[in-house]
């Protein structure tokens, strides 16, 4: 999305840190659907998800100064905050982890197309394919850990399988994702 003459994210964040509401709303318009998408994915409940999305943007407003452009993108920072808020929300509600089936994340790729540069888009896309490609039990363990904040031990309890099995699934699954990430041509070109 470069070349449109709009200020880049890092500049918008600086403006937000100065209390610029217009800059804030620009970031909101750009990323609200991404943030909300993650909230919904994690909480699977529209009401709670909306609260988390709202909280995430309030954090963006109050914490803009802590954002460090050298350490990554605004969107990643915002999504990391969203994940943390959603996990807090789980604990607050003492929620049971979600049903055992996992949505196949490879089915819908449309959501990735918006608002991200082509480079990032292709990286996420290859990761998404790799995740979809995992054996279902590996993918499920990763989803329970990452999107629902369960420890290895909690996953074992939840799935009623031995801890060692969970460790193996997480290890194999994450190794495959790492490999998929590493052979991404763009990513490889950076090394």
């Amino acid at each position: 999305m470069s070349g449109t003459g709009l200020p880049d994210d890092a500049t918008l964040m600086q403006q937000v840190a100065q209390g610029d509401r217009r800059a804030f709303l620009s970031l909101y318009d750009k990323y609200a659907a991404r943030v909300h998408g993650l909230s919904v994915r994690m909480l699977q409940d529209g009401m709670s998800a909306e609260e988390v999305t709202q909280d995430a943007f309030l954090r963006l407003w109050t914490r803009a100064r802590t954002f460090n452009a050298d350490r990554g993108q605004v969107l990643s920072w915002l999504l990391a905050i969203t994940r943390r808020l959603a996990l807090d929300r789980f604990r607050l509600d003492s929620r049971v982890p979600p049903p055992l089936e996992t949505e196949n994340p490879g089915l819908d790729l449309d959501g990735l197309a918006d608002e991200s540069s082509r480079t990032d888009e292709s990286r996420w896309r290859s990761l998404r394919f790799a995740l979809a490609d995992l054996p279902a039990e590996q993918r499920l363990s990763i989803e329970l850990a990452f999107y629902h904040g369960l420890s290895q031990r909690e996953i074992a309890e939840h799935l009623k399988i031995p801890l060692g099995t969970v460790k193996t699934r997480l290890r194999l699954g994450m190794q495959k994702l790492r490999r998929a990430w590493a052979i991404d041509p763009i990513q490889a070109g950076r090394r």
Partner: protein
Amino acid sequence: MAHKEQELLGAYVMGALGSGERIALEAHLGDCQECQAALADYEQVAEGLLHLATSVAPASGLRATLNARLAGRPGNLRSLRRPGLGRAPQVVFAALAVTLLVLNGALILETRRLAERGQELLAQQEASQTALALASYSTSQTAFVQEEKIWGTFVYEENFPVAVFNVWGLPPLPDDKAYQLWLFNPDGTRTTGALFRTTAAQELISILIRSPVPLGEVLGFGVTVEPETGSPAPTGPRIIGAEFEHSP
């Protein structure tokens, strides 16, 4: 051949390791560049996972709600200092300074009272001394927390990686549980600041908090109940906590 520790990195970046494994792994990571490089890969994978959810537009009213809420807030008054950027000018709002003076006075009294009671162990003394040291800085800040019958103060100075949490009324826990205090990092992760227990006899306990980074880089804290050896990430409900923010 890759180190065996690398097998744990996937679970580690998702916060899924038990505390024993996590601590051992972090100790190894501190000395091993090869595993640090592998960790960087896994961190990118974890970052990538954040981006996989399908976009969903929130209700259209949310934008207006946020905009209205922002109108009532003066934005980010807090000036966070990062190491290496030098000290920001030591400007403190007058009202805040007065509050802090009164507060620091109270803190010194409280700390002395603590010491006089002589009931506390070395850890308590260390916490008290740190509280005293913090009280001597005019730039020290205090976050107040209250949750029903529990209340406390979190005293810190933005440039220091230590702080003191004074808390009243935390109920004693069963033997296999402990309180774990978490520091909130800007990237959404949690770092353990302290693991502690209380006894029925202690109305007040002062906990020394150690942070890997100056407290100015920490967004807030929370206390949860965890297994006695601690957890890698919060699992129990939050008992008490606060975000660090200047009042306007």
